[in-house]
């Protein structure tokens, strides 16, 4: 990811330095989110759920691509995996939603470890193609192998939790994602990860174990994505290969992060809000929506490679810098 994120370390667009204040703000935000379904109309709870899932996916993708340089087009493989594991456990093992989601996170970790050996041999562009192939291979596997209900898919056979409860699960998942991202982007780990991103060989020469660092990021992202997939499956109550392993689940997080800002701390949130809003406005024209997403991607990569957050940061900096330049 040399160029899209090369402007040294990702700077925070809004810098609230004190960690205590940040923790207080984050806790308040999550408390508000947990309480939100009581007062919000059902439509907004639905949209909110979608938004939360997208933020989780985008955070995971941003960790991989923005901070780790691992541009993945295989988000859907872990999303679909989580969906199938969750529904399978709920139907056949009598698992509760939380247990099933935890198990799908573990399944995501297991597949990430198994696939890492092959995928991490592939540098840069080849990694991207490898993840795309993984997603397609998993989808074809699920369609063809008779255990998974073929192209028709599977139905959840027990009663589903209502949307307010699902919204709270999604909030908890997001809290987990935020915690993980705070740890991963504010610690020594983030320095190692960015070192690997910017020059894997140089990082290796100064003693960074590139494989382990990449694997750690890949595991964390996969676990988050798989849980999000499981949660989406519980909400739908029915899964089928084209939906759960659909390319859209790989495209959307990528688009969200590029729109919001690749490698920017708030890129995922800003991008997801815009993306979901545009999606709702164009809900009646799905093809147009995707085409507009494509145009937006091309324009942003060309003119604002660090997305909306990058633009905002540059604007803030200009405003901050102008008075100083006026002085002799």
């Amino acid at each position, binding site marked *: *990811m*040399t*160029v*899209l994120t*090369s402007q040294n370390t990702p700077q925070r667009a809004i810098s609230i330095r004190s960690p205590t204040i940040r923790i207080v703000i984050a806790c308040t935000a999550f408390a508000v989110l947990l309480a939100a379904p009581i007062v919000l109309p059902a439509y907004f709870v639905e949209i909110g759920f979608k938004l939360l899932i997208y933020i989780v996916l985008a955070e995971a993708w941003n960790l991989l691509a923005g901070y780790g340089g691992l*541009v993945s*087009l295989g988000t859907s493989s872990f999303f679909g995996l989580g969906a199938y594991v969750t529904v399978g456990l709920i139907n056949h093992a009598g698992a509760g939603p939380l247990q099933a989601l935890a198990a799908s996170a573990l399944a995501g970790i297991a597949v990430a470890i198994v696939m890492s*050996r*092959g*995928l991490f*041999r*592939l540098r*840069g*562009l*080849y990694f*991207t*193609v*490898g993840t*795309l*192939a*993984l997603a*397609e*291979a998993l989808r*074809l*596997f699920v*369609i*063809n192998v008779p255990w998974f209900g073929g192209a028709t898919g599977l139905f959840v056979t027990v009663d589903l939790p209502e949307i307010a409860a699902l919204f709270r699960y999604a909030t908890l998942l997001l809290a987990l994602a935020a915690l993980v991202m705070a740890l991963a982007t504010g610690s020594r780990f983030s320095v190692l990860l960015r070192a690997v991103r910017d020059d894997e060989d140089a990082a290796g020469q100064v003693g960074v174990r590139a494989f382990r660092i990449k694997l750690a990021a890949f595991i964390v992202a996969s676990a988050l994505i798989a849980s999000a997939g499981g949660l989406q499956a519980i909400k739908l109550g029915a899964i089928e290969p084209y939906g759960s392993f659909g*390319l859209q689940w790989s*495209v959307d997080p*990528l688009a969200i992060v*590029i729109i919001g800002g690749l490698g920017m701390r708030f890129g995922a949130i800003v991008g997801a809000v815009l993306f979901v809003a545009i999606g709702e406005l164009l809900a009646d024209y799905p*093809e*147009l929506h*995707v*085409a507009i*997403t*494509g*145009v*937006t*991607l*091309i324009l942003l*990569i*060309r003119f604002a*490679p660090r997305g909306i957050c990058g633009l905002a940061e540059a604007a803030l900096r200009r405003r901050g810098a102008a008075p100083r330049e006026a002085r002799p």
Partner: protein
Amino acid sequence: MPALDVILNALISGVLLGGMLALTALGLSIILGVLRLVNLAHGEFLVAGAYAGLFLLQWTGIDPLAGLALIGLVLALIGYPIHRFLLVPLAGKGPEASMMTMFGLSIILQNLFVLLFSADTRAIDRSYANVPLEFGPISVPQIFVMGFVISVVLIVAVHLLIARSRFGRDLRASADQPQAAAIIGINVSRVHAFTFCLGAACAGIGGTLIGIALSFTPTSGASYLLTDFAVIVLGGLGNVLGTLVGGIVLGVLQSIGGLTLGDGYRDLVGLVLFLAMLSVRPQGFLGHRA
């Protein structure tokens, strides 16, 4: 165990189809080799070629096989502005920027196809697509043989262009050492533009052949993109004749997979092979030659 003639038929159609796949993969391969660009819109170029053949037949009545050169030219003309206005400005911004731009283009094209031509499954309807050609127990559709021959001729032509011609020398130099090539007076950006157009033309012509032999939908592109990657990885990147070998190997393996496991497994065989190949021997069967 199916009868011997069924097996023989499957193997031969695998070889023939593999030759056509190789032609489409060649488009992806030369763009990757020379421009260092993973053209994620490659599958859409292929589908665009198939639509071009379909509409050429519907509007003018010209047989798509007779109009292949025209289709190649159209795709090259579509490719030129894409390279000039989308990719050239991104030069020096790293490979990911171009790759994601092509990805954006791919989702735009896919949805444009759906909006303009509907999501229906299409096939270019020619008599030779159904009439079988028979040699004793073996019978394959005529188009498989015609498509294979056309593909092999074009692949060999591209090979000769790259290996023997003056332009090919410039191209190889630009692929190896773009800066050094520019210093000794090779117009690298022109070579890149021409290579991109040539790649688009190969994809389009291959797409027309596949559109006659099989069927296609606006969203078929993604799976052909992956199949073509499998072909490149099997044959070795930058090895034009290796691409032909890779295509045939993949075609045969897909046929065997379809025969032994069921038709739905055809594509899965290719992908598993691709992933396995990437992790074991990323430089291809035939060794490395960039």
